């Protein structure tokens, strides 16, 4: 399991593109928003938490097809399937690797990009906390989507269509935490619900992902 994790991380870092791509995409989205809505500070600071969340979500989505596609093409996924590691474990490790290479950098980059959007000061900690709690859910749900569409050629667009509706609850609660934090309201309820979603999908969704991956490898 550890070997698989290090292998995936190494591949993501050394093969180029994968690691920084999501981050650069996040940067581009946040830079484009002021061009779209205008540079007024008060408007930007009001929408900043939501924009950061949507940017993180899209950056996450963009890198999903890398989770299984390369391993599927060169056949190492078949090898992994015959390994003594259960499929649920493989899927969980893949999701973890995706989170470390995509989710974690996004969490760390969010406050820096918040400056560009003139994010209100009290919101910084809540944006970071909500992203830290919420992005694992994005990775796990995304792994399910990637497993679902792994056998389809050019399945990227289809995967977005399948995954985005599944992201709705996470986005609602995550953005709500950030928004309430920005306005200085209490964030306990949405934060607990967000954590509930994260832990729930981490616990349950790998079984579904493993099931669809088995079907696809049949």
């Amino acid at each position, binding site marked *: 399991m550890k070997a698989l994790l290090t292998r995936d991380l190494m591949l993501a870092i050394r093969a180029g593109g994968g690691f920084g791509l999501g981050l650069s995409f996040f940067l581009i989205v946040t830079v484009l928003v002021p061009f779209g809505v205008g540079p007024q500070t008060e408007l930007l600071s009001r929408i900043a938490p939501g924009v950061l969340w949507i940017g993180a979500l899209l950056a996450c989505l963009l890198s999903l097809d890398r989770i299984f596609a390369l391993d599927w093409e060169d056949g190492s996924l078949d090898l992994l399937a015959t390994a003594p590691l259960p499929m649920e474990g493989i899927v969980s490790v893949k999701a973890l690797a995706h989170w470390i290479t995509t989710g974690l950098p996004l969490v760390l980059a969010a406050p820096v990009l918040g400056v560009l959007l003139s994010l209100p000061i009290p919101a910084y900690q809540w944006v970071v906390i909500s992203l830290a709690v919420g992005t694992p859910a994005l990775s796990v749900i995304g792994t399910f989507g990637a497993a679902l569409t792994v*056998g389809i050629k050019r399945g990227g667009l289809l995967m977005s269509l399948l995954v985005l509706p599944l992201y709705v609850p996470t986005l609602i609660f995550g953005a709500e935490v950030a928004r309430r934090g920005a306005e200085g309201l209490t964030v306990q309820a949405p934060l607990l619900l967000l954590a509930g979603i994260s832990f729930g999908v981490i616990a349950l969704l790998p079984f579904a992902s493993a*099931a669809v991956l088995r079907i*696809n490898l049949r």
Partner: protein
Amino acid sequence: MSLWEYANPVKFIRTTDKVLPWVWALTGICLVTGLVWGFFFTPDDFRQGSTVKIIYIHVPSALMAINAWLMMLVASLIWIVRRHHVSALAARAAAPVGAVMTLIALATGAFWGQPMWGTWWAWDPRLTSFLILFLFYLGYMALWEAIENDDTAADLTSILCLVGSVFAILSRYAVNFWNQGLHQGATLSLDKEENISDVFWFPLLFCIAGFVLLFVALVFLRTQTEIRARRTRALLAREGQA
């Protein structure tokens, strides 16, 4: 004699062939009665005027939009557990019908909302969750289309249906949290004191029955078509080999 006999495609087609004319006839009777009664023989609402008559399309279609997904969920479960092909095909057949019902509910809701709320669309929890349900239907149908192998497609879509149901329910309550509603609460509950007036209720009952029957008829017909299409493909494949 058990329910599972209908898992045999031949038996399914034979039975539904016998039943279908009756279902169509009943659908026609219910819909014509309900709609004519509802549109021409009910009074205007004292506040909403004649726009209240949109209810005869809006409520039944919204009801069927949700029930179609439930039916797909049950059919997917049967496919996963007992692997009856008719069940998987029925789930596939129901999806476009459900999607259209969702679209009808959204569209009639917009027509109703424009004069009543002064807006075509509001990010109200019910409206939003219906839009999300529509997206789920789209994804489900797209996945069916995208996969060439029939059994793989059936397996994957049924798991998507299960996972999607959980997330659809989650979204339903999440949007409640996110925004307060403009849409009225339930007025058709069986256990509440304050319900819709009987004058509107009886024709509405006919319309609901009509929509349920319409859904059943369409799903039967579409499942038959799916079975026949698959047979044709099998025959062609066999001829190609010979």
